[in-house]
């Protein structure tokens, strides 16, 4: 029986149980106040008792049954001819499993052919047992709940307890995700540092990852050029573009523009924020990078590369503008209007008020916004993958090709490497550094914003 049919049967049983439960509860109704809960609550209670035990049983069975199938096959006479070497045997068995599930596949090992029939039989048998178990649990749960439908049974309380459980589980997902990120990054990074020294990784100046272990290999994992490239592109070039443009756009929109201009311009800025990064990356590589190269040639550079830190940084800066502008917008709006009115009343012009009163008062919020923008820029992947280049250079020349942490993560993980090679694992170490840096930036920024809001409330 395929899982789809089983699921369908289970859903049908649940629905059936719901109607049966409601009918029984309705029959108990003798007048106002005769039932503790509504018939629909009794019905839901019954349906939950059918569904939850059955699904739980199914889950447990699907964890247990592969082991049972495996041991059943090992007892089969066809398996007696298999080689005793565990590795060889396992590869034949996994090939046979592939054959059993997909008749079109071809086996490399003739021994696998003989196993196909036993595997099919065993899988069939255990699937049937599983289905029977699920059905049994559904009926048992349903019967138990059915007997409990009485006039004074508090079905509503029980159902609501189940709802609260579901709510709690959903809100724990966020913690689980965070734990999952931290655990998987830490685990893989731990494996990486067992092969490569952490000191070499964090302070080495030479990046050209090689597989293997030992001090020579360890020397090839110096990540400082990557950190520098990331900071240079994301935190320096992009911010030189984004901070003035974003801040001035916000000032213009909030202080000078008429209401009509504002209603048109704000959505336009939001469109800029909604364009996928892969589009920016394509644009950077196709249009901006050649321009930057031509510029470099005019400045007298010899043989400038098409991929440059400047092209990636410029486009990234444009991408960040709406972000900086909306953060600046919020913090300027949070400055009490009494401060602004006071300054204007003293005879200051609008621009003087903005420069000497509003911006200094909003500065903590703006700084926090810039920190969030930096954390966004250094985590940005597609623009640098498409426009920044692969060479790990430690230079301050914006026309040079430069690489970043995110670029290297993509580079290291998209090949066909083994999962536990040092090269693959180093991507997780880079990921951990990126995660920690963005986390710290975010936490500080959120703190600053919070304190800033409190100061004016």
């Amino acid at each position, binding site marked *: 029986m395929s899982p789809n049919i089983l699921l369908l049967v289970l859903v049908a049983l649940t629905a059936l149980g719901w109607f049966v439960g409601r009918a029984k509860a309705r029959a108990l109704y003798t007048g106002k106040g005769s039932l503790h809960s509504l018939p629909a609550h009794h019905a839901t209670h019954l349906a939950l008792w059918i569904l939850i035990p059955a699904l739980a049983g199914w889950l447990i069975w699907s964890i247990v049954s592969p082991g049972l199938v495996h041991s059943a096959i090992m007892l089969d006479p066809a398996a007696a001819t298999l080689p005793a070497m565990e590795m060889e045997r396992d590869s034949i068995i996994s090939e046979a499993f592939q054959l059993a599930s997909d008749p079109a596949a071809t086996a490399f090992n003739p021994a696998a052919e003989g196993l196909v029939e036993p595997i099919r039989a065993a899988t069939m048998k255990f699937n049937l047992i599983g289905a029977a178990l699920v059905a049994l649990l559904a009926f048992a749960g349903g019967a138990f709940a059915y007997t409990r439908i009485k006039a004074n049974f508090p079905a509503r309380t029980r159902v609501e307890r189940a709802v609260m459980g579901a709510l709690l589980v959903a809100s724990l997902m*966020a913690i689980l995700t965070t734990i999952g990120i931290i655990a998987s990054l830490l685990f893989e990074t731990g494996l990486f540092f067992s092969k490569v020294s952490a000191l070499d990784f964090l302070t080495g100046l030479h990046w050209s990852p090689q597989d293997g272990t030992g001090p020579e290999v360890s020397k090839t994992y110096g990540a400082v050029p990557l950190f520098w490239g990331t900071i240079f592109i994301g935190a320096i070039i992009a911010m030189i573009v984004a901070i003035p443009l974003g801040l001035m756009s916000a000032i213009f929109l909030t202080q000078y523009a008429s209401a009509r201009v504002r209603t048109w311009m704000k959505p336009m800025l939001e469109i800029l924020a909604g364009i996928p990064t892969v589009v920016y990356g394509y644009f950077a590589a196709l249009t901006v990078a050649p321009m930057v190269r031509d510029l470099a040639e005019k400045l007298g550079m010899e043989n400038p590369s098409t991929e440059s830190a400047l092209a990636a940084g410029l486009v990234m800066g444009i991408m960040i503008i709406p972000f900086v502008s909306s953060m600046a917008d919020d913090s300027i709006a949070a400055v009490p209007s009494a401060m602004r009115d006071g300054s204007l009343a003293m005879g200051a012009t609008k621009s003087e008020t903005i420069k000497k009163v509003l911006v200094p008062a909003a500065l903590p919020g703006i700084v926090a916004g810039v920190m969030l923008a930096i954390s966004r820029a250094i985590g940005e992947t597609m623009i640098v993958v498409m426009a920044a280049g692969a060479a790990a250079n430690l230079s301050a020349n914006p026309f040079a090709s430069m690489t970043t942490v995110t670029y290297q993560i993509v580079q290291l993980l998209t090949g066909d490497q083994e999962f536990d090679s040092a090269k693959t694992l180093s991507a997780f170490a880079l990921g951990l550094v990126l995660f920690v840096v963005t986390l710290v930036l975010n936490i500080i920024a959120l703190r600053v914003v919070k304190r800033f809001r409190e100061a004016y409330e």
Partner: protein
Amino acid sequence: MNNPLSVWQTPAMTARLKGRYASERRFRAIGFIAMGISMLFLVFLLVTMLAQGVGGIDWAFLSGSDSTEPANAGIWGAFKGSLLTMGVTLALSFPMGVLAAVYLEEFAPKSPWVDWVEVSINNLAAVPSIIFGLLGLAVFINWMGMPRSAPLVGGMTLALMTMPVIVIAGRNAIKAVPPSIRDAALAVGASPVQAVFHHVLPLALPGILTGTIIGMARALGETAPLLMIGMRAFVSTPPGGITDPSSVLPMQIFLWSDEVDSAFVQNTSAAILVLLAFLITMNGIAIYLRNKFETRW
């Protein structure tokens, strides 16, 4: 000139005032130019894409799948992959996000646990997307052994990324429903769960949907996490289900942009136009919903 007001009429003062007004105008012009540069860039980008791509959009392009021949390559395969991935993302992140938002806003007791949930949701919303890709690779593919390149894994990874967005939007929408609604429901005998699910949630739904659409639009344009879980396969037939290898629209753009054959430039730009059309439509729907159903209490 003995009038005390006359200090304002001295030449020095007039010049000073003139300077101040000039600097006022300069500042205003700088603001206008800053705004204009962003807008010009947007227009430049759209015009470039239109000029290169609009000729490539025809029925064969919209209904075909990836091919090594630029003339035969189309986006239906990648588009279907995107649809399946978004389906998985929506099916997981919407219920989870809404339930979590309801719990945190309506039922959560004051406890350190709940504080941790809030901190992690706020931080997850700001974690770089590539980190979610690393999580998907380590947990879903290597640990749970799910198929690579499949919309199922892509959708699950993007769901983890979208959920915090939905939770934050959902909490704001629920917070905006006035307490009098809850009180009225409780006063006529509803249980807290009934008050929330029958009254508060329907009123908050437009706000939640707006947040969901914006989160989904972001997920639709996302490339980096899918690159991590291997959704960059060359797929010449549209995927049949959520476990088949497939590509997605942004990934198709990325793959085509890497092609040496310059005929793919037109394809890439055309695919970008299709993707942008979708994103702008989704955002338009979100803005429409917000304006139409927004209630000021």
